[in-house]
């Protein structure tokens, strides 16, 4: 029996500054290799979006001007997206996308942009940019580790501290203060990990795929792929961690 997933790719020509397109490439390839059909719907400013169509949403990070334009349009899609996420649709929102899926984003000048409130977080632009390799501990993958690269001035505060999906080992994470990284709400994930995230953390890519399939009633364990190159890339990134970013562990 042939399985299939529909991925809603949100504002990809605007939220495209940090290589997050790699997440789409990773999902497509890993689905293809398991002979799972994938349909990609590119959704942008002015497009209609109905609930119940997408099994997964992807949104990446973009520049300030682009994010402002996206925020205005997201308001029109907010009902559909929140309905879908309440119904367990999988979502990966990175950086700017993460911020816009929160309740609000306040920029350096004090101007507040409303988010769609999928995540109970709010973000404020901080005084300095948080840039560098980001290594976290997490239960979402068997190895317990995920790695990437962050680049943001926004400090994201979680209303529920337990809703983070990662704990920062090296880097800044959500806000550079409470050592939390990312958020999980139902099957929606927000994160600051670029790199990009899914190619470098294939177990997480597979986890998202399994979540999306499970929601369709398909409870399979995905056959493993040869992730040798992924493992080498992970090791390479680990080797690039610089000591000045390291928190002294408690």
């Amino acid at each position, binding site marked *: 029996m042939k399985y299939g997933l529909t991925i809603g790719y949100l504002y990809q*020509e605007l939220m495209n500054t940090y290589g997050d397109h*790699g997440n789409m490439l990773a999902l497509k390839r890993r689905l293809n290799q398991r002979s799972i059909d994938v349909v990609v719907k590119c959704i942008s400013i002015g497009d209609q979006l109905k609930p119940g169509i997408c099994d997964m949403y992807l949104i990446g990070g973009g520049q300030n001007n682009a994010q402002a334009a996206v925020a205005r349009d997201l308001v029109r899609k907010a009902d559909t997206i929140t309905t879908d996420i309440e119904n367990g649709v999988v979502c990966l929102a990175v950086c700017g996308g993460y911020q816009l899926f929160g309740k609000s984003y306040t920029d350096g000048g004090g101007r507040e942009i409303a988010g769609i409130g999928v995540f109970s977080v709010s973000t404020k632009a901080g005084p300095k940019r948080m*840039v560098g390799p980001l290594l976290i501990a997490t239960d979402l993958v068997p190895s317990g580790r995920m790695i990437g690269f962050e680049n943001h001035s926004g400090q994201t505060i979680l209303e529920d501290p337990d809703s983070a999906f990662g704990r920062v080992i090296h880097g800044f994470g959500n806000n550079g203060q409470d050592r939390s990284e990312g958020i999980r709400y139902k099957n929606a994930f927000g994160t600051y990990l670029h790199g990009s995230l899914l190619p470098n953390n294939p177990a997480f890519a597979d986890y998202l795929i399994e979540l999306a399939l499970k929601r369709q009633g398909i409870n399979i364990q995905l056959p493993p792929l040869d992730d040798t190159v992924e493992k080498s890339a992970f090791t390479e990134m680990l080797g690039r961690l610089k000591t000045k970013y390291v928190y002294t562990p408690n």
Partner: protein
Amino acid sequence: MSDSNMSLLNENKLREAKFWLANKSGRMAWYILRLLGRNATTLPGLVATTIDPHFLEKFGTRLDVALVSGTNGKTTTANLLSQITQAAGAKQLIYNGAGSNLSRGIASAIVAKSLGSSAQAIFETDEADLVYVDTALKPKLIVLLNLFRDQMDRYGELDKTAYEWRRLFAQERKVDFLLNADDPNLGWLGKHHRNTEFFGIYNIIGKKKGASAEIPRTADIIISPHSGELLVFNEVYFSHMGDYHDMASDFKRPKLNYAICDVNLRGLEGTSFVIKNPQGKVLLNLKSPLPGIYNVYNAAAAGIAALRGGIERNLIEHEIGKFSGVSGRLETIEVGPGRRLIVALVKNPTGFNLLIDLLRVSVHTDLNLVIGINDLLADGTDVSWLWDVDFENLKSSVRQIIATGTRGQQVALRLKYSGLAQTVTILPNVAETLEKILNDTAQMTVCCLSYTAMVQFRSLLLQRRIIQHPSRSQP
């Protein structure tokens, strides 16, 4: 003499003495480095500006300065303009040809030349330093080429640089600008400025007007800097460069003072085009060995700046016709009978995608490729941008790829997701890579290298005497 006059005189003497000391010390540092056979493009300037923090300002008052800035192309444009200017008789021209473009690099270029007979200077300037260098040197002309996403970890965001550059246009001092109208950020910045002239592309041969007004996925700006709404493009030449207008306001590409017409893109062989004024008169008829559409902008900018400076048309056309490039920015190197390397600097998705387009069009035989990406400070520590490069487009052209550099594994990972895994070999460093390609029989190998990887590569080629100079354009 009154007390206050005396102290004023002493202050002036002190200022002059500091400048003299900074200049002499910088020059000594330069001598010593050159004697040791080392690169002298940063440290001498650092010495000079440390001794006298106002070194650049004092220097600026003695000279006629032109600055060239932008994300891509400033080294090529500045070098080409310097070449033309020297050929026109400016024998003591000061310029930072090796591409060291932060303020200390500019100071280094200054101490390397004795100030006595120099009247002119042309400096390529890093985008983030431009406002500071402008304040210090008070140039007469600023040439701006483009703004692309580049080294995101250093600059944070594209819009931020554009916003900073607004200060240049808002200042009282008279300064002339020559801007690329095809970049929406530059069209917006120069819109109301009295002393700004614009150049841009009018038509490309073989491309129907309006045929493809679709912005590539990796374009950096499609939001209007004026209204914050989407820009609409009548023509897209590459990435976000083209003929645009704003849906929500009357902002659009400015009128061209210099129109680049009849552009003929001839793959790796170069380009030809004509520059006309608004009345349709041909100002320059150019044929350049530099390949790719981005080099059309570079050659045009240099040619127009030279023309505005009073340099004769024939000389400009001649110099541009023979300028085959700056080290590492797409340079051909013979490594044996019938065997050559092409070395290209890659720094961001736009540049790399353009290179891939060039290769697809130009190469008829199977291609050998080296992709060497380091992530040191000068390369940019964030290599996520590799995921926005469309390596998939190489699928039918490439025979073998070597992935190397401090992020060689990430390159290999990227290539795996492009469907190119079966062609990839990973080597730990540039030295081993060079060994392998020199022992190979391939006729042509294209080496796409990040900045420090390119510097390492060239230094190895120099050691083996395959090339003669560390940089083709040492000032």
